[in-house]
């Protein structure tokens, strides 16, 4: 038991290695998302970042969160990103020399410096930005990861949970309504009766 209880109590050498590996994955992936010219490569780098976060979750013994991170974020959301990129057919040799926002590079550097400085300042004052093992306290007994999470979500944070669910449903319904509306206006104007896609009065082919 020695190794694992040591891991839980304080940082050890293997702990450190796992953290470094995870951190390298996260930072390397994040840099890749920005630096890569090809949007698909950026999406791949994003997967690397999300995987790194999953590794850090496991290192903090949040196994369930790690699995969900991989299933939901790496497995579903980035696939959707890739879908959009592929459907839009972004050209591989797209030119990025033209900047739509003048001076955004300097502004970005300044803002990043401000954010990093405030995180460091906060980190020196309080513990929560740095993170600590078992911030929520020890979770004893069998199957705690899921048990604890389930209890927290369906008791303490029930309102937030249901509100999030409602928000997602609203977003989905809104997206469907928007997509359908644009489709129905064209079909109402151009396809009153008869054969779809063909207007008998103007003898013009729709699309």
């Amino acid at each position, binding site marked *: 038991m020695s*190794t694992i209880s040591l891991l839980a109590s304080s940082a050890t050498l293997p702990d450190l290695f796992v953290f470094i590996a995870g951190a390298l994955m996260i930072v390397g992936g994040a840099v890749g998302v920005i630096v890569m010219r090809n949007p698909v490569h950026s999406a791949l780098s994003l997967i690397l970042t999300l995987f790194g976060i999953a590794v850090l979750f496991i290192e903090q013994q949040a196994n369930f969160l790690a*699995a969900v991170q991989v299933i939901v974020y*790496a*497995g579903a959301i980035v*696939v959707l990103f*890739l879908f959009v990129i592929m459907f839009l057919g972004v050209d591989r040799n797209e030119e990025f020399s033209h900047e739509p926002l003048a001076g955004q590079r300097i502004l970005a550097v300044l803002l990043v410096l401000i954010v990093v400085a405030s995180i460091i300042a906060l980190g020196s004052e309080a513990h929560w930005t740095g993170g600590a093992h078992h911030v929520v306290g*020890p979770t004893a007994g069998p199957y705690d990861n899921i048990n604890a999470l389930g209890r927290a979500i369906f008791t303490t944070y029930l309102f937030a949970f249901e509100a999030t669910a409602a928000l997602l449903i609203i977003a989905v319904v809104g997206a469907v309504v928007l997509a359908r509306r644009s489709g129905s206006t064209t079909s109402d104007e151009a*396809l009153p*009766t008869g054969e779809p896609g063909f207007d008998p009065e103007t003898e013009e*082919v729709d699309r």
Partner: protein
Amino acid sequence: MSGNYLLTAAGDPLYAGGVDWAVVIIALIKVLVAFGALMGAVTMMIWFERKVISDMQSRIGPDRAGPWGILQSLADGIKLFFKEDLIPDQADRFVFKLAPYLSVVPALLVFTVIPIGGAVTVAGHTFELQVADPPIGILLVLAMSAIGVYGILLAGWSSGSKYPLMSAVRASAQMISYEAALGMTVVTVVLVTGSLSTDTIVSSQSGGIMHWNVLRLGVVPFVLFMIAVVAETNRPPFDVVEAESELVGGFNTEYSSIRFAMFYLAEFMNTITMSAVMVTLFFGGPNGPVPNIAHLRWLFPILWFLLKTVIFLYVFVWLRGALPRLRYDRLMDLGWKRLIPASLAWLLLVAGFLISAWWGVAMAGAVILAAMVLNRSFQLGSELEINDRAVLPPVGRRPLSPKLLRDSTDGEESD
């Protein structure tokens, strides 16, 4: 022991006494044996599938290499290994090379959590016959099948060719759709087991055939899981991914040599591991009667496991031989309009009856109500698809008007 839930909840007893050299060596041997067994199983599976499908189609099938053609897949593998490795001009070289690994590695990792036998004691160390028994066990299967999507998606995209791209988009849409139904049916198993660990799932089904999840849960979750698995592994009748008549050869059209072999390998590994997952979740894994023969008691769970898995492998081949390929929109309809609602409904029923009979009855009422509402909405939706009020133009309409056609040709249409 307190606070040490990694060991109390689940986990291989091998690591209970700390990690020393013997433990490391045992773990390494487990990894190597699992890898070798899976590779051997894949070559046998390819041969088995070709032989069985030949029988069903009144052909002989492979019979040149070795007795009954049993070495055919080995010969094919060697041939593929020595073939020229082509990369298309339009390909994205890095992603093109990466994609086969993104298919194979998840397929290998899924196999690590499957218990293929009971606990075994060798040289004072007791361990489980599975490579890893993480507390998230079955979720690893879902996570890895989610990652496996990338192999196909990126292979199709990076080829720089239109048919592979279409196939890849189809494949990934299909796989993420069916993953939802897959996950939902896994949740019903987890509800009765109370654990995600595959080892606990298996041990909770011990004590005879009536304790197997397939009967405990009513047969419905198993059927839903089976359909979802066939779609998830892109096997016939859900193999629209590589529909030869529409997409040339699917996402791997541009691949050749060892990279093509890796996709092929991943596909068959997924078939085998998913059969094993089905056995683990619903059919008690390695559980079965063990005759009291000295020194051989450890062997029987493995044999039971193999027997059950081979039955499912046969069913997979049987489905391929018996059913025609589904049209793509039918496939998506089946996934979203039938499987996902059905798995959700059964999940609610199981959860209700686990609390009390009255909750179960209440849930049954809710499910019937929801089914009626859903059915009505499907009716309304299909009306919007086909008649005058259609909001989406149907696919495959006549490209030119009859008048334009007449003007561009000599006269009336001949019919």
